[in-house]
Each structure stands twice: as C-alpha cells, then as structure tokens.
C-alpha cells in the first residue's frame, strides 16, 4: 500500500491523505493546473516538502523494482536506440536483459521501433518507448503522468489495457489523465481542483454531472451537454435506453 500522510506542496498541493491499493488503476483527473503532476511527483518522492510517503508502512526508497515514474515530457537528448533506452529503465549499472526489454517494447506495441534512434521517432512513438522504459523492471508501483497524451485513439485504448494488465499482475498504477472517457476505465478516480482532492471514488462517484460542470467547466447550456454526459458517464457502448434513463435521473437542476 502506498500512503500519503499530510502530503503537501504549497501552493500547488494542499495537505493530502491517501491510501492507494496495489492491484488497482487509480486515475488522477482535474483541469489544467489542478495539481495532478505535483501530486504524482510528491507520491514518487521527487519533490521536497511537508508530509510523508510510506510504502507498505516504511518510508519510500526509490529503485527500479519499487517505483517507476513516467514524466509527461517526451524529450530525448541522446540519439540512442529505443532498446538501449528501455534497458536503462532496469536501473543504473543493471546487466543487459534483452528479453525483458523486448517484452516491454512488445507490450507497448513498439517492437518495430527497437533499433531506431529515439530522437528520430514521432512524439507518439517516443511516448510508447518511454512507457516501455517505465514498465521494463516490473516495478511494484507505476506513477504515470499523461501516458496517453500524444497517442492515437487505438494506442490510447491499448495503453489503458496495458495498465489494467499491470494492475492484474499486482502492480499499483496511478495515472494522470485528461481524457475523461479513458478515465472511466480506472478502478478509482481522484478528482483534483486547486490542489485539493475534491472527489475520490469509483468513476461513477467522481464523474458526476455536477463535478463536470463545477470543475471542468462543461456548461450545461452547451448543445453537446447531453452527448458529453452520455459519453462520459454512461459510456458509448452501453444501450441508448440506459443512457437516456441515467440522463433523466441524474441531470442536475439548472442553477
């Protein structure tokens, strides 16, 4: 269990207490500037400030098998191959493990990129290689900042499937997302606003029409309102009748 105790990074993050379970995908959502990255970096032990992070009751010590941090940045300075970059994810001075590297690249649909220079890849391709770097050591915790940004729709879904697979093998996954449609697939959502967790629960509990309006500024007089609610709260694959019923039942009163 990964615990945050009075974890704060003023002014971006107010004191926060969290208990995150392994084997779950926890989504961190919120508008721009809500503190998603700040929360993830603090959980990863990458920033100094008040509060503590405990891993299974003990202070967090970083290491490739303990925790993987994937920053939102996609830059790569050195023109090394994707396989070389992924190998670095096994830790400083780790012996080469070509099979683990190949498996990680395959899991991110990046096998074809293995021998290409990372600085010559497209941003989306590089995003998949960097994700492979994060999972290669099979860390107990994955803290991922916007892993699906820059990806095409097919690869976005693939990555969400991959995160579910990682959680199934027992890893704890914490992922910042902007795509609320994908966020629906998380086991638990933390909704952040102004550095405070304002909703914490299942996607249905966190993504209420009220929260959409209040925290994401999705306006109810928007002519797409009904469609947005349908897509986000009920899901496009579900039947029309269910969405209609839910929309009728859940639609909040106008202000």
């Amino acid at each position, binding site marked *: 269990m990964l615990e945050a105790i009075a974890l704060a990074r003023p002014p971006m993050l107010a004191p926060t207490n969290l208990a995150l379970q392994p084997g779950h995908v926890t989504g961190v959502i919120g508008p721009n500037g809500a503190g998603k990255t700040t929360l993830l*970096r603090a959980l*990863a*032990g*990458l920033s100094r400030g008040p509060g503590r992070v405990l891993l299974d009751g003990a202070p967090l*010590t*970083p*290491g*490739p098998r303990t*925790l*993987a*941090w*994937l*920053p939102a*940045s996609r*830059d790569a*300075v*050195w*023109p*090394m*191959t994707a396989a*070389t*970059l992924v190998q*670095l*994810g096994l*830790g*400083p*001075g780790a012996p080469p493990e070509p099979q683990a590297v190949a498996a990680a690249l395959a899991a991110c649909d990046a096998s074809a990129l293995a021998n290409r*220079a990372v600085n010559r890849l497209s941003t989306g391709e590089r995003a998949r290689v960097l994700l492979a*770097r994060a999972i290669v050591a099979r860390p107990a915790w994955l803290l991922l900042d916007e892993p699906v940004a820059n990806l095409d729709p097919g690869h976005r879904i693939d990555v969400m499937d991959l995160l579910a697979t990682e959680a199934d093998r027992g890893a704890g996954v914490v992922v910042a997302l902007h795509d609320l449609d994908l966020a629906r697939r998380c086991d638990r959502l933390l909704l952040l606003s102004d550095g405070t967790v304002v909703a914490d629960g299942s996607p249905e509990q966190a993504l209420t029409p009220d929260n959409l309006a209040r925290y994401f500024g999705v306006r109810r007089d928007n002519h797409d309102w009904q469609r947005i609610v349908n897509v986000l709260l009920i899901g496009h694959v579900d039947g029309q009748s269910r969405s209609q019923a839910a929309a009728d039942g859940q639609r909040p009163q106008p202000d």
Partner: protein
Amino acid sequence: MTVRLALLCLALAAASLAIGPVDLAAIWARDPDLARTLFVELRLPRTGLALAIGAGLGASGAAAQALLRNPLASPDVLGPSSGAALGAVLAGYFLGSGVIGMAIGGLAGAGAALALLLALVGRGAGTTRLVLAGVAVAMLIGVAINLALSLAPSPFALYDLMFWLMGSLDDRSLPQLALAAPLILAGIVLLVRSAPALDALALGEDVALSLGVARTAVQSRIIAGIALATGAGVAVAGSIGFIGLIVPHLVRPHVGHRPGAAVVPAALAGGALLTAADVAVRLLPAGIDLRLGVLTALIGAPFFIALVMRRD
C-alpha cells in the same frame, strides 16, 4: 573499442617519447647519461602529461555533457578550469613564475572555483541552476584573470602569463607530472564510478532519481571529478580547449550513445588526441611556435561548427 583506443594511446605515447628537437639515439651513442636525463626529465613528463591531461579533459567532457544533458557542454562551463588558470596567474605574480608554485596555485584556484560553484548551486539543485551557476563562476573568474593580467607588474610578466595561458607542454618536468597525474587520475576514477548514474541521467533528472540515483551525492561527485580531472591539468599546462568538447562526440556513437558508457573511451581518446597534437606541434618547422592549446582550438573549432550545423 576501448582496447583499440588503449593501443592507440600506447603507440602515440611511443611516438611522443621518440620525437623531439634532438635525436636521442645519436646522443645515446655519444653520451648515454645525457640521453637518459633528456628522456626521463623531458620526454617522459611531456608524454605522461599529454596522456593524463587529454584523458582528464576527455572524461570530464563526457561527464559534463551527460550531467548537463547537453551535447554542446564542455567541462569549461562549470568553472574549475578557469579557476585553475586564475590561481596559476596569481601564483605567478606572488610566488614568482616557478612552475611548481603556479601548479599549486592552479590547484587552489580550481578548488576555490569548485567550492564557489557548489555553494551557489546548493543541495541537489537542478540542471538549469547548475549551468547558470557554472557560467556565472566561469565569467567572474574570466574577468578576474583579465584584471590580474592588466595589473601585471611588467610587460614581460604579462607576456609570460599570456603565453602560459595558451596552453603548452613545453619543458614540463617530472615534479609537475607527479603533482598533476595522480589528481587527474583520481578525478577520472570518480567520473568512471559515476558512469551508471550518468547513463540514468539520460532519462531526465526525475527518472534518474526514481531509479535510485542519489542526486546530491552523484552531482557533487561528478563536479568534484570534473574539477580534479580538468583543474589539475590546467594548473600545469594552461588552458587546452576543445578536447573536452569534441572527444565525447567521437566516441559516443560507438557505445550506443549512452552518455555514461562514453566516459572511459572518451578518456582514452582524449589522451590519444592530446598526445597526437603535442607530437604535431613538435614536428612543425622551427620558427613556427604554435602553442598546443592553440592547435587543439584550431582543430576543434571547425569540428564544433560542423557539429552545430549538422544538428538540424
């Protein structure tokens, strides 16, 4: 590649020992003692210093580029080599232009620049702050050198110091080798030990931290290694530019562009390149007095321009 570079260093060292203004073999036939003295007192320190200083510059360049995550960085941007030059110049004023005094002054200067840099940077600072602090220290020291030169007690002192600053291995002695080489070697050892961390830094500072790299310890160790490996060289030979900038680019493609893995080959290639350059300045016809530091810059500057142009 490491083995081939080591053999190249040995071959160039042999050439450096064999080549000089006088024919040692001819002197050996007439006066073996004189030949031995010339060999031990002049050729050996010169060759040893070329290998050691070149290796220090090469390893420092690879480490600086990896630490700052910038292929256009050189060890000079962090300041210790400027500090060494200032220390040597000041020692030249106050202690006379004795070579050992200047070397000790240079070492003190490199240490002072290092201390200033670490004080400015503080604990576990990021790359940007490190670069800015290094540039500030180097600029401050550069101005101090100019001030010291403009206050030179006599035109001759000014001429001597200007010439010394250009970098040369002429007439270096065994005590200078004994003073500088162990320090340079210690610096290179620090950098080689940091190689895995330098590789991890290729993924960014945050990711390196999450992989278990201790930022404060690693940063201090790398900066201290660079200060030792370059400062000790400048203290005895003056400023020799561009080796630290270009050598890492020559070797990095051969280690899969892993910045940490390039440290050892860069040390060997730096030693080979500086030894070759030092042989070249001795092969020039008499009357053309091209300083070693000037020659490396003449070779290095076009290479650097080509590198910048090729980047986009």
